[in-house]
């Protein structure tokens, strides 16, 4: 998956909380989502236009995790974001 084609939706408001976690609000559905620290890091990276590879590399730099595991985590989180229609194409 190439995240450069995806970006956080304009219909989504994100608020950080508690030193790394976050709350997302989908303004279209009025649904709220709680993001853990990892998902929040992915969301912020998406806001900066980073690719899956770049986000996974960031994770390996910040956490003790192998690159392939980090990549799978990022892809899983992105799948969730897409399932809930929180991302839009650039």
């Amino acid at each position, binding site marked *: 998956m190439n995240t450069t084609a995806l970006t956080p939706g304009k219909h989504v*408001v994100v*608020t950080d*909380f*508690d030193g790394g976690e976050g*709350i997302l609000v989908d*303004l279209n559905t*009025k649904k*709220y*989502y*709680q993001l853990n620290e990892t998902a929040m890091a992915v969301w912020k990276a998406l806001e900066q236009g980073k690719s899956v590879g770049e986000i996974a590399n960031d994770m390996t730099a910040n956490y003790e995790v192998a690159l392939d595991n980090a990549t799978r985590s990022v892809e899983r989180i992105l799948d969730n974001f897409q399932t809930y229609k929180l991302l839009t194409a650039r």
Partner: protein
Amino acid sequence: MPVDAVVVDGRPGLTWMNMSGIELKEPFFQQTVDRVREQEPWRDAGLFTEFDALLQLDQLLARVEPAGFIFHSSRCGSTLVANGCRALDNAIVLSEANAIEKLLARFITDGGDPVKESLYSVLLRAVVNALAHRGRDDVRVFVKFSPCGISQLERIRRIWPDVPWVFLYRDPVETIVSNMTTVPAWLLDEDHRILAHITGTTPADVAEMSLEERCARSIGNFFATAHSLANDNSLLLNYNQLSLTSILDFFNVSPSAEELDRIASGSRIYSKEVAGVREFVPDAEVKQKSASDRVRQLAQQFAMGPYNLLEHGEGL
């Protein structure tokens, strides 16, 4: 400004009023709202939004870190302290504002759901931020919570870990007598869920309790919570040792001579008086003498132990 947290057609959210240029000069926030509604009804357009509007607004506002929190166990000088803070230049006091208090209550009524807990924490931070923005950058913001607020101290500290907080308390007999003379809304607690949580009982139990017992159990819990959560960032102060200057000093505020004059003249006035003309009269002795045996027994049974912990660091 968000002036209340309400549910409209099953949708939880906030009501808003145009409070631009309005000074929050009354002892309680809702008194200011009532005054504005009466004098300038055009400011209340009945605007209701769901909470997402608050979070959108929060994105646009710089984050305001409160200068201090005021917790109390009811009828123990907290309004006097709030008025003292209000007398400072460039200070606002959010005193028991409905929007804040009702969000705090939701931690109890919707408790046990971690997503909701995080959401309410974010909303609470945002509502304080929205209330604190008064068009200036140099405002010192103090938040005074209702007595039940201390029961949510852990959550509040999680949101604002660095904000200093004071807890004001008073002899339990005097506190109960005062609350029986004029029964406050927190003690009536419509569906009893809040008091059940605070007293560790059930809403049915609370419904069966006399008001004296509800009060004794509640303030005992307030004392115990404040004692157990006190840290380097807290000041626990008895009504009989109340000192505005020491509290302001604790809040890192050094009042000017003019500010001290205003605080001194304000402290001679009965603190809850909106008009600011009824003079304050010390009443501890009167309250002690008028306490019934039942009040003394309830105070002893439910509040004296935690009170002594605050006073002496040990239960008796």
